[in-house]
């Protein structure tokens, strides 16, 4: 069965959002047969390893494909050497942006990512979120910083581990466990939802969609059968040879997901319904379920951030008063609209209440002194020119919070967006990079819209250091669909309908 999957390149023939993940078994078999691995004889590497064993499963985790990202060349060199000593296949990278594009180009080319926290071009946590959302790879964070706060950030952002520098080789030897664990969990999700009939359904979908190559079906069936067969087998073998279809959440797909979730309302958004609304052939309930889980985490984190006003000041950008006027009127409308859709998260609510926001009642003329919002949000202003801003703040279903769909966004673009304010740049990156992981409670997703041509951005970073409020700067609320790559163009030229929407789960109380 695996013969069909001759090489990783094969996978690129499939439609972007659905292809079978290449799991270890076949990779190792190929690698072993083709490359004739030489086992290192250093004491450190052979300790505890079946280095001499020819069987593919036994070779695991040798050949684990690791991407290591660190702007410090010394550390990078040492890590690379250590990882190679562990028999991993290492790719090193000194820029987060490069790492991200490498990952995007080769979605299935890596098994795990190790990244430093502090990097000049992009915060490591941003990168972490990007990866979690787009590629769903396990990510290990590392830093010389061992403060509890930072480590906690790793946890909340979904890192599977946190290493403190200086990293010892012993710490790296076991990183394969994160890959295995993730795969196992994904299989579990898959099974739990009655995979059998869905598997069949999926096959059918595949056929309908017209991209069922015999390889596809063959693999699917074989993977299912294999799964059954391997229930008894050794844990390691099991996971290493499991074939698991992995869905990649492309920008478009995520967009559809968010639309569906918004339509249903975050409370009522259950995977089944989301799946139905999305109507994407080949997508399974499990795929949606796990994505939803991440989305909720993301949202929870946003609201968690919004509850800490003390964090707000650090990167607070000096607001330009002139902008508050128009902004307020805009926000008012946004709030109304959003309120109307019944999506106001309680916690963001608290924040806004504190800021003196009134209750959007669906009527115009909200008497909200949005100026007070300054305390929480800083607005970067006309520098962010959004194309034609209008308020397409409306109830329309396509209220699409494109946060976290930055696949076409280069962090550089993000950085380029703001003229001058560093924090803005960070924010931008944070913003778009956000992998929406929602919590049921607090999707504080902000999209800003400007009635005028100037756009204003809700300064993410003002909400704390890891603000994830806005994903998309100038995300248009589309009545006509969102161009995912609209997001951050320098100067926002491409954004056709810039828009600020503050999405809430419940209506605000005055």
């Amino acid at each position, binding site marked *: 069965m695996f013969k069909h999957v001759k090489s990783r390149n094969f996978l690129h023939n499939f439609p972007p959002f659905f292809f079978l993940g290449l799991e270890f078994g076949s990779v190792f078999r190929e690698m072993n047969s083709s490359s004739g691995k030489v086992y*290192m004889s*250093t*004491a*450190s590497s052979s300790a505890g390893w079946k280095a001499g064993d020819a069987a593919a499963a036994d070779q695991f985790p040798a050949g684990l494909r690791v991407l290591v990202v660190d*702007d*410090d*060349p*010394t*550390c990078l*060199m*040492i890590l690379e*050497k*250590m990882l190679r*000593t562990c028999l991993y296949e290492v790719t090193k990278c000194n820029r987060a942006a490069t790492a991200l594009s490498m990952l995007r180009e080769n979605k299935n080319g890596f098994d795990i990512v190790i990244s*430093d926290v*502090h990097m*000049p071009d992009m915060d490591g946590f941003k990168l972490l979120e990007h990866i979690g959302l787009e590629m769903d790879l396990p990510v290990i964070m590392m*830093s*010389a*910083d061992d403060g509890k706060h930072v480590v906690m950030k790793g946890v909340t952002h979904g890192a599977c581990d946190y290493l403190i*520098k*200086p*990293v*010892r*080789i012993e710490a790296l030897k076991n990183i394969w466990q994160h890959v295995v664990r993730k795969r196992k969990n994904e299989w579990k999700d898959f099974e739990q939802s009655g995979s059998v009939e869905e598997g069949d359904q999926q096959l059918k979908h595949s056929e309908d969609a017209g991209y069922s190559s015999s390889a596809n079906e063959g693999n699917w069936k074989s993977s299912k059968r294999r799964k059954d067969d391997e229930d008894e087998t050794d844990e390691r073998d099991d996971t290493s040879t499991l074939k698991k279809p992995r869905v990649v959440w492309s920008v478009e797909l995520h967009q559809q997901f968010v639309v569906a979730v918004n339509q249903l309302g975050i409370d009522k958004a259950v995977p089944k319904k989301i799946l139905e609304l999305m109507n994407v052939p080949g997508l399974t309930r499990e795929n949606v379920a796990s994505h939803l889980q991440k989305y909720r985490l993301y949202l929870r984190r946003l609201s968690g951030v919004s509850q800490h006003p003390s964090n707000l000041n650090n990167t607070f950008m000096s607001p330009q008063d002139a902008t508050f006027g128009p902004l307020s009127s805009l926000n008012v409308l946004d709030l109304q609209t959003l309120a109307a859709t019944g999506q106001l998260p309680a916690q963001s609510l608290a924040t806004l209440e504190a800021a003196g926001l009134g209750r959007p009642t669906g009527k115009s003329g909200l008497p909200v002194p949005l100026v007070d919002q300054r305390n929480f949000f800083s607005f970067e202003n006309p520098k962010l020119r959004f194309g034609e801003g209008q308020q397409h703040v409306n109830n329309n279903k396509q209220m699409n919070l494109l946060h976290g769909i930055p696949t076409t966004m280069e962090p550089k673009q993000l950085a380029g967006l703001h003229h001058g304010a560093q924090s803005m740049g960070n924010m931008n990156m944070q913003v778009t990079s956000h992998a929406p992981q929602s919590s049921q409670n607090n999707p504080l997703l902000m999209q800003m819209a400007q009635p005028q041509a100037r756009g204003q951005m809700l300064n993410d970073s003002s909400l704390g250091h890891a603000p994830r409020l806005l994903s998309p700067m100038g995300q248009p609320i589309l009545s006509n669909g969102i161009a995912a790559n609209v997001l951050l163009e320098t100067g926002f030229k491409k954004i056709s309908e810039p828009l600020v929407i503050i999405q809430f789960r419940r209506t605000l109380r005055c």
Partner: protein
Amino acid sequence: MEVVQIQRNLVDYTKSLFMEGFLDGQFLQLQQLQDESNPDFVAEVVSLFFDDSQKLLNELTIALDQPIVDFKKVDAHVHQLKGSSSSIGAQKVKNACIAFRNFCEVQNIEGCLTCLQQVKLEYYLAKNKFETLFRLEQQIVASGGSIPMIEMGF
């Protein structure tokens, strides 16, 4: 001088560096990574460290010289220096960085300047020590000997 003698000198010298706190266990990690396929690994990494940190030190000097000091930037540089020095086991440099960061946090310019001096001092001392170390190694290799692995009992 006989190879054996040089080897003994090397071992003694290395041990003294550990004793005096110039080096810590991380350096041993580096040494263990070196093997026949990569016989100059340690020297390469250390040399990379010194080049890179020279740049950082320059940046730090400039940053602290500004009329308005950007402490975040200073802290970021020191943090990186701390990370890389700890990765090669240059303990004294690392410790100097830790002290430096404390002053950055409280935005104490005088303190920072003093720390910068200290870090630079440690940097040069460490560089010196490493150079001596590698010179000894080269002598051994040139005389046909092999570099003894240090076994540290502590």
